């Protein structure tokens, strides 16, 4: 029995040697990726679960400052034009009102830097915030009220009358499309990618599918509406801005706000301990800037909690798209041509052409490929990242088209995909770091009972319900963005791992505690994971499904630094004297020699001998070289069974299964929850989510959860998830982030199942009953 862990010898875990060079072609995989590692993959319950369900977890809109005022916004009702008059007299005279801020009295602010355009950019667009009379979208904040209570602020904001000089606005996508143009970049890459001559190959192909798919706008509906509580603290000229935000990018937000307010970033401090869902929407929008500006003007702290409607007016969503997929194939189903092109709505003030061809870059080994994205400029709130931007709607088009081709060829849809499985990335030419899509598809098909699918649509019925099965491929890239760094503090109690990362409900705090415990050879109870604070080290975006790997890479570097420090502390009497980092490993709450159980010392012993209360090590993550060496993606296959009513066209999803290949799964419980959550969001995308954007006014007409439909409990069947659990040898922990892949492929899997049920091919989302009946 170990005196340190209480475990018997049988439970004894292998030590964790330093992980160094997983990113190199000849590098060694991170030992934490090996199967059978203690803790890794275990279904540990959320460490903050009790806090959350008992109300102990405080969210941004629940913090308070002494003397705090409440904010409410008034929003524009035109899409383009000028404010020619704002009547705020009634509002100013109302009880409890402390300030009415408009462009006429707002403090002068710099234009916010835009996400993905500026290195410090966290903002959704580059419009000046309440700095002039211009209106750029229907719903833009035009006035802000601060009052002693939220009710007083709301009532005063409603009393504000604004007169506009309206100018013509491009609010009709059909019209905007006629002036579509190529954007200067798509996620930093080219808007068009060509391999061979896809158009020529398509013309001469034996079998051809050429179809247009359309997807609507979507809005963010995280369960926690955006909120911020903030105060300018300290005296004249040297004030600091203290912000409780709901954020998935605390450091970027600090950098952006520093630029907006023209102050040093060291004078802004953002914390965000709990976030009630991010999905790409919890970045920097006007509400945080306006709240800080108003607090400055009023000289008092401010809380701004957006209403649900306010979120629709101020926070961007997913852009609508019109996509063409043209597939050419030979008799064996081998793709000779793959064309995926189309148009997405965008504004001239942001930098996210909805990247719907992303998944198509890596999925199929067609001989000739052409991918092209154009954008249609519109007067609307800037579109933004929303769970798997690009892949979610792009896989709807691509994977529907594959199903149509399979039908034309009389081939099983999974067989068709198998015949087009590429050996290397078809557009970059790089080898895949880890691709086990076919294994995932095979295992999923077996579990789901895919072989029972009737190839003839409309073959199966139960009463008025026609039953069908469908499948589609899911995929999302692996990423590890630069900037991550971590600090490990070791003391007698255990280790504190600190990094400016985020917990938005996906389980980061839990999983990273598990990982740190395994890496340092400590029990999870002895790990404290600190995050969600801009004062912590590193810059980690909780986005692009990259946070897990980013934190992992940073902790690997910090572990190395820590071991260096520890070895520097040991003296000649220590059994570890004279060793180099390569010779040791972390195990049993201490450091030991690889392959020699007798040479070992606990962290406590090392610290005690050196008379040190604590030891701090900090390091930057290694550069993401792995992304230059391999094509790195997660994969999966979604299986779906639907019933379609012959009478009404109503669609009921009866079964849903996701079989994923996402490297090593770090926590079976939180992973399953993330996969399921993504798949439920995919059901919403398939069947009901749609922002009603009035093409006459540019106004969103369903800004509420009553009118903007997401799946309710009764729409969601039992969902099964499974995974290959094959580690990617070239990533930290062998893992991939899994926050987004769950939503991909679901739209097409549902559409394909509907076709199999009733023979109706719907290429326009959402698939409502009128399109089927």
């Amino acid at each position, binding site marked *: 029995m170990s005196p340190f862990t209480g475990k018997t010898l049988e439970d004894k875990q292998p030590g964790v040697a330093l992980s160094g060079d997983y990113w190199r072609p000849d590098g060694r995989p991170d030992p934490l990726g090996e199967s059978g590692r203690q803790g890794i993959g275990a279904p540990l319950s959320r460490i903050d679960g009790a806090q959350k369900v008992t109300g102990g977890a405080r969210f941004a809109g629940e913090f308070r400052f002494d003397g705090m005022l409440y904010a409410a916004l008034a929003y524009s*009702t035109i899409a383009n034009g000028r404010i020619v008059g704002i009547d705020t007299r009634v509002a100013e005279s109302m009880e409890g009102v402390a300030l009415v801020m408009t462009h006429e009295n707002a403090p002068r602010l710099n234009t916010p830097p835009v996400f993905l355009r500026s290195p410090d950019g966290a903002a959704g667009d580059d419009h000046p915030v309440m700095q002039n009379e211009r209106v750029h979208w229907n719903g833009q904040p035009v006035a802000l009220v601060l009052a002693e209570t939220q*009710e007083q602020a*709301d*009532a005063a904001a*409603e*009393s504000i009358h604004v007169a506009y000089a309206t100018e013509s606005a491009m609010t009709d996508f059909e019209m905007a499309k006629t002036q579509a143009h190529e954007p200067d970049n798509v996620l930093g890459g080219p808007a068009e990618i060509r391999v061979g001559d896809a158009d020529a190959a398509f013309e001469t192909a034996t079998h051809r599918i050429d179809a247009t798919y359309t997807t609507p706008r979507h809005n963010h509906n995280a369960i926690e509406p955006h909120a911020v509580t903030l105060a300018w603290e300290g005296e004249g000229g040297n004030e600091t801005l203290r912000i409780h935000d709901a954020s998935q990018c605390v450091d970027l937000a600090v950098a952006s706000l520093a630029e907006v307010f023209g102050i040093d970033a060291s004078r802004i401090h953002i914390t965000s301990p709990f976030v009630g869902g991010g999905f790409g929407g919890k970045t920097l929008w006007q509400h945080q800037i306006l709240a800080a500006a108003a607090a400055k003007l009023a000289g008092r702290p401010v809380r701004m909690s957006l209403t649900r409607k306010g979120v629709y007016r101020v926070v961007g969503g997913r852009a609508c798209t019109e996509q063409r997929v043209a597939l050419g194939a030979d008799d064996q189903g081998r793709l000779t041509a793959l064309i995926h092109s189309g148009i997405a709505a965008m504004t001239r003030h942001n930098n996210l052409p909805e990247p719907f061809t992303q998944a198509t870059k890596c999925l199929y080994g067609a001989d000739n490929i052409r991918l092209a994205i154009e954008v249609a400029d519109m007067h609307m709130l800037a579109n933004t990242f929303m769970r798997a931007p690009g892949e979610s709607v792009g896989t709807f088009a691509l994977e529907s088209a594959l199903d149509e081709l399979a039908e034309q060829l009389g081939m099983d849809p999974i067989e068709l995909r198998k015949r087009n499985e590429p050996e290397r990335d078809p557009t970059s030419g790089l080898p895949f770091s880890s691709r086990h899509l076919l294994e995932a598809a095979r295992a999923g098909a077996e579990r789901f009972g895919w072989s029972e699918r009737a190839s003839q649509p409309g073959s199966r019925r139960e009463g*008025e319900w026609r039953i069908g099965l469908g499948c589609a491929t899911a995929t999302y890239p692996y990423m590890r963005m630069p900037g991550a760094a971590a600090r490990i503090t070791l003391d007698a109690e255990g280790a504190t791992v600190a990094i400016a990362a985020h917990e938005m409900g996906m389980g980061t705090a839990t999983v990273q505690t598990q990982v740190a415990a395994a890496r340092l050879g400590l029990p999870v109870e002895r790990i404290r994971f600190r995050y969600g604070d801009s004062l912590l080290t590193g810059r980690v975006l909780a986005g692009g499904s990259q946070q897990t790997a980013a934190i992992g890479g940073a902790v690997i570097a910090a572990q190395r630094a820590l071991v260096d420090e520890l070895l520097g502390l040991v003296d000649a009497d220590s059994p570890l004297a004279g060793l180099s980092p390569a010779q040791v490993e972390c195990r049993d709450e201490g450091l030991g020699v690889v392959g020699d159980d007798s040479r070992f010392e606990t962290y406590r012993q090392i610290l005690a001998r050196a008379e040190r209360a604590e030891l701090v090590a900090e390091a930057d993550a290694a550069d993401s070289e792995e992304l230059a060496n391999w094509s790195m993606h997660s994969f999966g296959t979604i299986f779906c069974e639907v019933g379609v009513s012959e*009478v*009404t*066209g*109503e669609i*009921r999803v009866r079964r849903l299964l996701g079989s994923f290949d996402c490297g090593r799964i770090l926590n079976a419980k939180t992973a399953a929850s993330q996969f399921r959550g993504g798949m439920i969001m995919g059901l919403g995308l398939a*069947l*009901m989510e749609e922002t*009603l954007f*009035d093409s*006459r*006014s540019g*106004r969103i*007409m*369903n800004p509420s959860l*009553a*009118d903007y*439909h997401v*799946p*309710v*409990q*009764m*729409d969601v069947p039992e969902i099964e998830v499974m995974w290959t659990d094959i580690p990617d040898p070239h990533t930290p922990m062998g893992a991939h982030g899994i926050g987004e892949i769950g939503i991909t492929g679901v739209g097409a899997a549902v559409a394909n199942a509907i076709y199999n049920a009733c023979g109706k091919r719907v290429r326009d989302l959402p698939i*409502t*009953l*009128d399109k089927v*009946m």
Partner: protein
Amino acid sequence: MRAFDYHQAVDSGQAVEQAVRRDGAKYLGGGTNLVDLMRETVERPEMLIDVTALSRDIDETDAGGLMIGAGVTNAAVAGDARVRLRYPLLSRAILTGASAQIRNMATVGGNLLQRTRCAYFYDVAASCNKREPGAGCDAREGFNRYHAILGASSSCVATHPSDMCVALAALDARVHLLGPEGERELAFNDLHREPGERPELETELRPEELITAVELPPLPMAVRSEYRKVRDRASYAFALVSVASMVELDSNTEDETIADVRLALGGVATKPWRAWQAEAVLRGQPATEETLAAAADAELAVAEPLSGNAFKIELARRVMIAELSQRIVDARKGGES
């Protein structure tokens, strides 16, 4: 929402008195619709007179029906054993609506007077003749998937959103009222108005009149009544089309004929829609597919589609036929037992 006064009425007479005394007063039921509308500033009452404490009983009537107090919650009506046994479609209709939490708050009186969920009515930035007479109608050329194909006018195409009211329309319910001039009764089917040129006038209620009760007359065939609601998700959505139906067969004749029928539609009309035309076609006719189709066609002959809701004509037709067919099957089984 702007500030308002609140008064809790102790009895119906006092509630009406208070309403007469105070300009801009409104009766408050569960508040599940009115308070929403106040938040959106569509409704701006000076005072709310809370009538939820009044008439919270469901009583037998001498005629053999039920008298449901206006303050009874939707949940209580749906769960009442007598309602479930004798008027099951009313229970079903209520349970297809809203959420458990809302049904626990919402009252019968309030449900009758709930207002359309037309997006342009709800958004004070839009043009709406119902909200602002003469302003125009943004729904006619806008998003009108949820709008009416029956009973609409050039000034308004908004649907009445209630499920419960569709059941009441089928049941020939009566509405009991108390106003400054005293008590009176209205047939439920005469309570709501079609919009015509005055979409802001939604009912035949006189100023300050308070709904005190809804009376269900005895109706034996209602034992086999049903409510089917078709919508955009499995729960928590307004009807695209809903059908309340019950059928009595006459098996004594040579051909089995439809002795009596009640049919009402929701989600398709500007008021809870009793399908009088269809019923007229069905009564006394053979219980065949042809009769059912002819009845549905007769009801929908005057249906007028908008840009986004033409599918509702075919959907309403199909659901009417399917539901009547099922009621006939049920009636045959009922006859055998």
